[in-house]
């Protein structure tokens, strides 16, 4: 009873306030624009994926029809590197190979995460793992200022609106002289404060969720599922956190101006100071060496393998006598057999050397995830990126997925190449694909 009373008075009061109408207009617009950009970004990703899949399918279909033509005697093979029956042509050269994708998750439009830095797809051939960095051509100033996504609006901007709505709930009463009026009521100031806060909390939450649902429906982002429910839960918690801070400030006998300064100060601490100190600690405790040296190291590995090339290959043949056909074989066979052995050795040694980056990076991530609890905004950002599938951990998993698929790819093509057994057109349907 009391609650509805306070709520209806609050409504009468708040609908006259500029801060409220400002919030009610600006916040939905910001949310809408961020979701629009997000859905565009995801659509573009999906488009890229579709295009590459089509190109891949049509390449193998083309190979197959060429091979069929050759088998039926309608066409001839011009050169060995154009023969569609050759495992090298099917698994290594030109457009051969497969793309591995980290497909956008349902909530991908909500957070751009690290997508502007780390690749979400790459190409695999028998010897190459090539993550494709679409961002390589991007204006780096974009990466400096960051993405305007829903995560940004929620994590950075929403708290400021909450502060504007909640910094002077009681202090303004005191300043307007209506405080003693409140005190004369049969309800404690504290419970009035709590209920006023709850009212404002529900109002802002309503604005956020309503605009989220409406815009999502418009941009076909699927929210009516468990993920959407979790999202709403998390948004409520985050808003509640900031309203609680506002309420705490209003409990003290401080002026509105002091409250505004104090709450903004907390915002600065949670969103700017703590994160900057965390990133400082994390990178100083576990420094990652420069990639400049890594590049030369890679080269040293390559040179070493090249220098010992003949010996390495002979050793390999001794170990795998059944995998190498000696005698009168084409020159490309001898060349590529060696290349595969060398590529394998180089890949193994590079994996080893790559540890010096992986280890500190992992330690950085672990430490950061522990320190993040100090700042609810950072925790929320991390949660959103995970939900959107645009977090560092997932994007880094691309390389593992590519490596796993390369294994499969090699297991399909290499034994055939080693025995110099070419493919027939029927067998071309069995070429491995990550989608199956």
């Amino acid at each position, binding site marked *: 009873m009391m609650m509805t009373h306070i709520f209806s008075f609050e409504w009468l009061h708040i609908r006259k306030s500029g*801060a409220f109408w400002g919030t009610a207009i600006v916040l939905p617009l*910001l949310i809408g*624009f961020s979701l629009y*950009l997000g859905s*565009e970004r995801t659509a573009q990703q999906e488009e*890229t994926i579709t295009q*590459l899949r089509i190109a891949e399918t049509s390449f193998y279909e083309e190979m197959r029809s060429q091979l069929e033509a050759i088998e039926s005697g309608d066409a001839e093979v011009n050169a060995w590197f154009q023969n569609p029956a050759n495992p090298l042509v099917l698994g290594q050269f030109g457009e051969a190979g497969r793309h591995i994708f980290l497909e956008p998750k349902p909530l991908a439009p909500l957070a751009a995460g*690290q997508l502007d*830095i780390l690749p979400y797809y790459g190409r695999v051939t028998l010897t190459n793992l090539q993550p*494709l*960095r*679409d961002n*390589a*051509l991007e*204006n*780096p*100033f*974009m*990466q*400096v200022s*960051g*993405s*305007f996504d829903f995560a*940004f609006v929620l994590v950075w*901007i929403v708290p*400021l609106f909450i502060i*504007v709505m909640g910094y002077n709930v009681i202090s303004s009463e005191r300043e307007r002289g209506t405080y003693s009026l409140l005190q004369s009521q049969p309800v404690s100031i504290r419970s009035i404060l709590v209920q006023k806060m709850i009212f404002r909390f529900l109002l802002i939450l309503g604005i956020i969720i309503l605009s989220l649902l409406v815009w999502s429906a418009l941009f076909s982002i699927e929210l009516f599922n468990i993920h959407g429910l979790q999202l709403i839960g998390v948004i409520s918690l985050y808003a509640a956190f900031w309203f609680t801070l506002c309420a705490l400030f209003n409990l003290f006998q401080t*002026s*509105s*101006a002091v409250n*505004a*300064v104090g709450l*903004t100060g907390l915002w*600065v601490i949670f*969103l*700017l*100071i703590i*994160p*900057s*100190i965390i*990133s*400082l600690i994390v*990178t*100083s405790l576990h420094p*990652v060496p*420069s*990639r*400049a*040296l890594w*590049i*030369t190291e890679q*080269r*040293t590995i390559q*040179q070493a393998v090249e220098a010992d090339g003949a010996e390495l290959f002979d050793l390999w043949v001794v170990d795998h006598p059944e995998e190498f056909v000696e005698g009168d074989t084409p020159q490309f066979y001898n060349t590529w057999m060696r290349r595969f052995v060398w590529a394998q050795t180089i890949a193994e040694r590079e994996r080893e050397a790559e540890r010096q980056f992986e280890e500190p990076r992992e330690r*950085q991530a672990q430490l*950061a995830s522990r*320190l*993040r609890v100090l700042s609810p905004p950072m925790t929320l*950002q991390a949660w959103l990126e995970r939900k959107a599938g645009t977090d*560092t951990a997932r994007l880094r998993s691309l390389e593992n997925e590519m490596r796993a698929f390369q294994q499969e790819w090699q297991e399909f093509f290499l034994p055939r190449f080693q025995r110099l057994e070419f493919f027939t057109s029927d067998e071309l349907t069995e070429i491995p694909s990550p989608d199956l």
Partner: protein
Amino acid sequence: MNIYSIARNQLTQLVRDKVVASLGLLILLLLGVSIITGISYYSEMSEQHHQAEELARIQWEKQGDKNPHSAAHYGTFAFKPVTVLSVFEPGVDRYTGVSIFLEGHRQNFAAHSLAEDKDSSRRFAELTPTFIFAYLFPLFIILAGYRSITSEKESGMYRFLKSQGVSTGQLIAGKTLGLWTVILLIYIPFLLIGLIVLIITGAFVESLAGFLLMGIVWLLYFGVVAHITITVSALVKSSGSSMVVLLSLWILSTLLVPRLITNIASGVHPVPNTTEFYQAVRTDLLEGIDGHNPYSEHSAAFRDSVLTAHGVDDIADLPFNFRGMMLQEGEEFEKKIYDHHFAKIDEIHRDQNRLFSISSLLSPTIAARMSSMAVAGTDMHAFNHFTAEAELYRIELVRELNMDLKLNAVGDRATGYTAGGDFFARNISFTYERPEAVFINSAQIMPLIISLFWFVASILILTVAARIKEEV
């Protein structure tokens, strides 16, 4: 006289104000920490880059006897320079690749940006002087100045001062002077520390001009914030609303406009993705000479024209190695194609940057950041200059290699020709050096002008505010 006593009074108040004083100290502390960590990071990086550069050269020279064109495929690297000014203004440094692989037939992107290897918490905020100056310092100025006039009104001092013959103009001038003094109290120590850093790192001569210009850029920015703060404080009724208005402006300038404009820019002037880019390049490459494929139509036509010109029927009868000639011909054609496509990307970036410059009319923060990156040599233009130099080097190196093949792989040396270590040691080498201490091209001048514009405009606004209040 009045102005100075008002300023002195304001200064005393601010220094005694616990919140202002502790925030000021916090900023100084953060600046100190950011410089110390920045320096150690810088020296580590530049050490590693030097090592890498030397190693890469040794690897090139010691690659063993090889066909020169195999050496072109083997390739070498160019390393992005690390500048001491990046300690203060890292600019786009973290996001651009640290090295470019230079090889025959193609132009590669710079690869391995630092951002790829760093934890993502850094993207919230990274403790660098430029972060402190762009975000925290304006907040400090707002905090120090938002009440400067409103509190006089609220306490009734305003009327009292007026009755004492102090004009609003004098009050505003005094308060502004006081605020400026507080700003300089923090900023001058920073500048001194910065100069010491330049001396210690031995980069004093080449970095001084950039550092001083950067110092001026930020000072202009602080001036803009200070003048707007005083203006708002003079125009609104209460300290509370002064705070809210100023904070909204801060959010707009530092958070909203920069993120909005960069995202709008990438929508208005989209960059093709890497796959599209390479596809376009590949399509164009098919239109010309493929140095490796003597059977292609263009290569055959080229061969015939060379044969005719020398009046022989077989390439073996030519006085030079035809393959070397064809590879070079192909290389030059490929370069043209790559240059053309990279120029298109550059054009898109320029359009985007123009949008950023325009948007800095709404956000002094963008103007200041773009200007400070430009003078510190850590913006995209500086990076492009490095990649352009690396490309010049690449094409010259490949030419040396192809020429060696063309001139020396003749007669009985034609089959199985190799060049030795002494040849590779003689090859042109690459060390990137910035052309001048500060070099700014026409595209970068815009943000600097807008920074200056903001400063002048903020003074004008302040004067107009004083005039308005005088009349009331």
